[in-house]
């Protein structure tokens, strides 16, 4: 299981994906997207990076090298079928060791974003506190979710205004964020609650928390899927700024441009 094949997630089906844009001033930034067995939104995260102007690199969970990427996205899906516990098996992947080490560094620590299953992996790897349990209504839920950016000081949110609202698709089975009160107070006190659900908590998450960061702000995890609100025509039907063209919502793009711009300096 250690064969490297960066082509793998792209085989078959709709192609070509948006290719790395050589004219983009941000295309020098390489963002790795990790594929585990059972990853589902890896191709979408790659597309989001490219639409934001960056260069996407496929990373395979069984590899030991981060291929000199400048940032990493752990995408959504059901890695290892969510068996045992969402993210519980993936955290032991060889590549996760590299990611954990690189993300825990000092000032130039690797920026890491965990989306949905990726968020679950990050909590299992103890890069982020808390855990995700089954939604309080026990159903899988897919809906266009309104969020508020609670901290624009992270690597992944600097392009937003503090308090800005976004509409981003949410889709998960185990999306209820839980942590003990002391941890929750700490997160609140240190400004590490990065996104909060508004207009209704979709899964029973404590204090309406949709996303959090580590203390340094380089590691962010969130349950909603910003990579599904980056391209007009294939996103949610609305944007926080108002009505848009059908499926025209692109509120999630800022997450990807944030990290690219931060890294370019």
């Amino acid at each position, binding site marked *: 299981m250690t*064969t490297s094949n960066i082509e793998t997630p792209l085989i078959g089906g709709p192609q070509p994906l948006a290719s790395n844009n050589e004219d983009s001033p941000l295309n020098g930034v390489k963002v790795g997207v990790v594929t585990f067995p059972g990853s589902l939104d890896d191709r979408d995260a790659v597309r989001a990076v490219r639409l934001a102007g960056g260069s996407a690199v496929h990373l395979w969970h069984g590899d030991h090298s981060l291929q000199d990427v400048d940032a990493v996205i752990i995408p959504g899906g059901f890695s290892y*079928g969510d*068996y045992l516990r969402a993210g519980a098996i993936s955290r032991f992947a060889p590549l996760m060791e590299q990611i954990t080490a690189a993300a825990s560094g000092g000032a130039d620590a690797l920026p890491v974003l965990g989306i949905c299953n990726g968020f679950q992996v990050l909590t299992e790897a103890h890069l982020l506190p808390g855990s995700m349990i089954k939604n309080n209504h026990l159903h899988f839920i*897919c809906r266009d979710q309104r969020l508020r950016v609670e901290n624009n000081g992270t690597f992944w949110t600097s392009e937003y205004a503090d308090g800005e609202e976004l509409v981003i698709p949410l*889709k998960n*089975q185990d999306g209820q964020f839980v942590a003990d009160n002391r941890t929750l107070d700490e997160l609140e006190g240190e400004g590490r609650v990065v996104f909060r659900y508004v207009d209704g908590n979709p899964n029973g998450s404590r204090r309406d928390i949709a996303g959090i960061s580590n203390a340094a702000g380089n590691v962010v995890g969130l349950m909603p*899927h910003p990579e599904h609100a980056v391209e007009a025509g*294939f996103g949610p039907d609305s944007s926080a700024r108002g009505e848009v063209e059908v499926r025209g919502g692109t509120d999630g793009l800022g997450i990807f441009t944030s990290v690219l711009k931060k890294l370019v300096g």
Partner: protein
Amino acid sequence: MTAETTSKKFNIDTVANAEATPGQALPWAELGLKENEFQRVEEILGRRPTGAELAMYSVMWSEHCSYKSSKVHLRQFGEKVTDAMKEHLLVGIGENAGVVDIGDGWAVTFKVESHNHPSFVEPYQGAATGVGGIVRDIISMGARPVAVMDPLRFGAIDHPDTARLVHGIVAGIGGYGNSLGLPNIGGEVVFDSVYQGNPLVNALAVGVLRHEDIRLANASGAGNKVVLFGARTGGDGIGGASVLASESFDDAKPSKRPAVQVGDPFAEKVLIECCLELFKASVVEGIQDLGAAGISCATSELASNGDGGMHVELTNVLLRDPSLTPGEILMSESQERMMAVVTPENVSAFEAIMDKWAVEYSWLGEVTDTGRLIIEWDGEKIVDVDPRTVAHEGPVYERPYHRPEWLDGVQADTFAHERPADLREAVLELMASPNMCAKNWVTDQYDRYVQGNTALAMPDDAGVIRVDEETGLGVAISTDANGRYSYLNPYEGARLALAEAYRNVATSGAEPLAVTDCLNFGSPEDPEVMWQFAESVRGLADACQELGVPVTGGNVSLYNQTGGVAIHPTPVVGVLGVFDDVARRTPSGWREDGQAVYLLGTTANELEGSEWANLRGHLGGQPPALDLAAEKTLAAILVNCSRDGMIDAAHDLSEGGLAAGLSEMALRFGVGARIGLDELCERDGIDAFTALFSESQARAVVSVPRSEEVRFNDMCTARNFPTLRIGVVDTENQALDVQGYFTLPLDQLREAHEGTLPKHFG
């Protein structure tokens, strides 16, 4: 990797033993074979079959696998296809799924199948493995699956057993499909007490591939290796398990095994990626998924579609349960398995890909040129057959059929109920009714975003998926059926199902191209049901010919019958259309203030079989009249409007008529309209109630920007298609205002429309 040979030694019924003991009694009746069928097996073999051969023949000659009752009728789908219809057809009926050329070197494969009976017994796993099975059919063609849809039919919404089925089936479809990363882009949810003991769980999947990547199920080239990979083989999904257990000589083994398969979506997701990598590396010559009849089906079909011979050592099969007998291994329907044929040179490349994805595999044997399928157990021959006699030369029945005598009475019973006094209340009642209410409670449990190519999904008229990111090339799919129409007139009902799916695809802006069908009926041994089946197939084949869209594949589900009562004939028809650019797809809701609302088509007094009549407990008369020439013209108008940017919204009118159409257009984006019915009533000679609730066909409502009205009207006039401006989009009032009759605030309409499913299912 070699399988650990099971230490357990069965008292194996070998071919030699069968020759030596011609008189031994065999449980053919318990395995579902008729006496004449068993005699034919003996004739074919020139001896009695072994236990393993009997298992293979019984399952491959079952109705489900052999289409023995339906075959004589299904031929019409081939016979009524013209050369022009075949223009886009790359692979037709008979393979795992049909393949259609959509241009630029791209092809699409799609198919709908049933998983009705398992879903009633075990709703979650039944529905889940229904998705799994159809997705493996798509992979087998060499395609990446890109979307699924699920047409569902349940019993009465308030029946105590319905909630069990709804919860289990919806969660099963979501649990499996969501874990595969396939967007669920549409389908149907219908409630009717005729489906109480026989819910219909149909599953459709679509896949995308390049022309040169098409893979077929055949085993060619003597000396090539046969490999089984994916999940291990277990005791799940064995049809006549109790009988086979009695054949065993080991009392310690479990005597009953579940007949419903258990799905592992993670294993399937890995299987998808691993198969696509095998295809890309060109290391498989032929491939077949294991579904119904498991290894029996895969070996006999691969062998008979290729050079005709195969030699398999059955003890090499990796097992979940070492106590399985050879017959059980041959019949097991364990999920997430595939069989492939690999040249000796490619064996190591094949193994490398398996290892990369951590997929288990075992080499079972090889292709031969003997024309025989030989299966051995520890070197002893237990199957020696001509594979064609198993896979393709099963029994074919001309089952007797006749028109039911009761039908005249039903058709003469026209709808004569009094018109409701309050049309506002009537619209609210309709839109809150089980069949017309919002289905978000269901569709919100499905992922519609994954893969990032979904351009339209429920509740729009069709699901739309982008295929090529550079050009926007894509496809639209819709499935439809109306069991009440088919009950009243099965010939017309099937045609109406096709017409609606065709219309839906065109309403989204796509050019309809091809058809798949899932024919759900009662028992073929009931001559009246058989007549319904024959009429439906004839109707569908005729209508396909008239509309110029070929059937590319599908599935027949018979015996949907409990206690002598059959379901309504329910031919579910899926139509696939193509877009040069999905950016021009037409959504189903109004958005822009002041746009003109037009009704295309004419409305007659056609309430028989309608949702309104259904709400009043009436089912009689004839279904709405169908004019396929008008459907063709309407579709051409809708596609041209999309192409030329003449309309901003479109919605077809079908169940629930204009009342449902207007309500759904308003609720889609929360934008109302002011509508006038007077001119329509006068032109068509109908009253306002009929205008709103009639289900006349070949109709659609569109909204036209002011700047496009002249061009739009000119085009409709040129095509001699009736249109009428019936109102104007109104973003201010937040209401559906039918002038002179009622004003319905959208909040109130939404509450009624969206409240029904949560009220019943929590």
